[in-house]
């Protein structure tokens, strides 16, 4: 049938399979974990996990079928048009950015995020906010000193004055 219509069948993406397998594992774990609970506690999660397992298995089987058809189609159509199936994404879309950002850009972005939240947990918000703002603007944003310092000082200062002193609201305080 595939051969007759010769419609392009996209290749299965490894990421999809991994996600489906991960979800399958989650549902299996949930099902097993639920066994130790009393009936009324486990009834709903068990039902749910069973449904989830069924969906995941069907999905994985679907991926298997898709992979098979893709190979059939690719053999017929030749290799040159292989990866054209993806729709044209405009360069502002999040899918495009995630798909095309280089490894270094990813590493840098994740490093900044890690630094921010680690610092938030360790040093608390009042130290993190000005320092991170300054560092990020200077290094990642290559902004001028004046702008960065003002931004950082104002953000940190206001946060400290209003939240810390004036209203005394709970903030991530760090471990010190």
């Amino acid at each position: 049938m595939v051969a007759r219509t010769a419609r392009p069948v996209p290749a299965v993406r490894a990421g999809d399979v991994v996600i489906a397998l991960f979800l399958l594992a989650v549902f299996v774990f949930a099902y097993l974990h639920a066994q130790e609970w009393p009936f009324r506690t486990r009834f709903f999660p068990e039902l749910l996990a069973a449904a989830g397992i069924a969906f995941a298995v069907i999905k994985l089987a679907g991926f298997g079928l898709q992979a098979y058809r893709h190979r059939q189609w690719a053999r017929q159509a030749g290799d040159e048009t292989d990866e054209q199936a993806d729709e044209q994404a405009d360069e502002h879309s999040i899918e495009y950015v995630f798909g095309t950002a280089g490894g270094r850009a990813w590493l840098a972005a994740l490093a900044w995020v890690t630094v921010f939240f680690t610092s938030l947990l360790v040093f608390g918000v009042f130290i993190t906010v000005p320092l991170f703002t300054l560092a990020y603007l200077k290094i990642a944003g290559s902004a001028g000193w004046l702008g960065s310092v003002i931004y950082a000082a104002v953000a940190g200062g206001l946060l400290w004055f209003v939240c810390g002193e004036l209203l005394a609201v709970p903030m991530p305080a760090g471990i010190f």
Partner: protein
Amino acid sequence: MSDRKHQSRFLFALLGVVALFATGCDSAGTSTEAAGGGGGDCSMFEGETVKLVVPYSPGGGYDAYARMVAPHLAKELGGKVVIENQDGAGGLLAINNLMAAEPDGTRLAIMNGVGVAGGALADAEGVRFDLQDLSMIGRVAEQKPVFVVGGGTDYKSVEDVQAGKGFRFASTGPGAADFVNAQMLIQILGIDGRVVTGFDGSDESELAVVRGDVDGQTGDLDSRIDAIEAGDQRPMLVIDAERAKELPDVPAIAELDLDQQEQELTKSLIDLSAFGRPIVGPPGLPEDRLSCLRKALQSAVESPKLLAEADKQQRPLTWLSGDELDDRVKRLADAPAEFKRGLKDAYEQK
């Protein structure tokens, strides 16, 4: 071009800054500066900041009480009292955290007395402390439990309920005060009935009672009084040693004709209910700090200004001293085994 860019950057910075200041300043933020010092022996708190933890999110009864009392307590202590909401585990998370706090009195918590004390007695999961270890500062408000039925039901008195069959109580779930009280009533009064769980708070329970989906519920007098006055719910019993002044015609459970064992259970139940909404501190508070806090809280709760405010908010204050709470803790430790077993059942059905 670059000018406009500059302008928009400036605009943004300004807005960001305005935004920032309040974003962080979320939830809890009432802080109250003291005006003038308090009692003579309370100098150690002068200028200090005391955190009063509310184990629920803002907007509920505990939160309202804490916010109402905080400024007056601050005045008595000569320092600041700051509210911090820390919800989790039905109020247990904050109390568990309190146990590890520095015992200097700068971190206190208002707590769900019946829930936490009951849980501790039942040795329920999630309670990681002994009731005796908590430093009882004092109870700011009681939570007089009442037993009500739907206004449309045929039950006119407790005797009707006892004579009836298949009575259904509404409750949020095991471990909640409305569950413990209902379970205990079934046991003490020999009601042929059961507790239907899964309602999302006393509001949904109330609606179910008014609709006639269930027959009745137990709840605080404060939160039931509107429905009682509107005729949506009919009071059957006050779970206390004496009648409530708001409901002079409704019998107290202690008046009922009970045998000795039932009386003992009733006594323990009343002792448990007496915890109401206490303010507690971490274990091992030094004697001088504890007595200072107790004194300060008492004069705050008994100050005419706060009483007037409480009256207006319809959140009445009924002081019970830390000493008396300690007494209750001791008495409950010696409560009849059957009471503890009943509690255990109420916290973990099987």
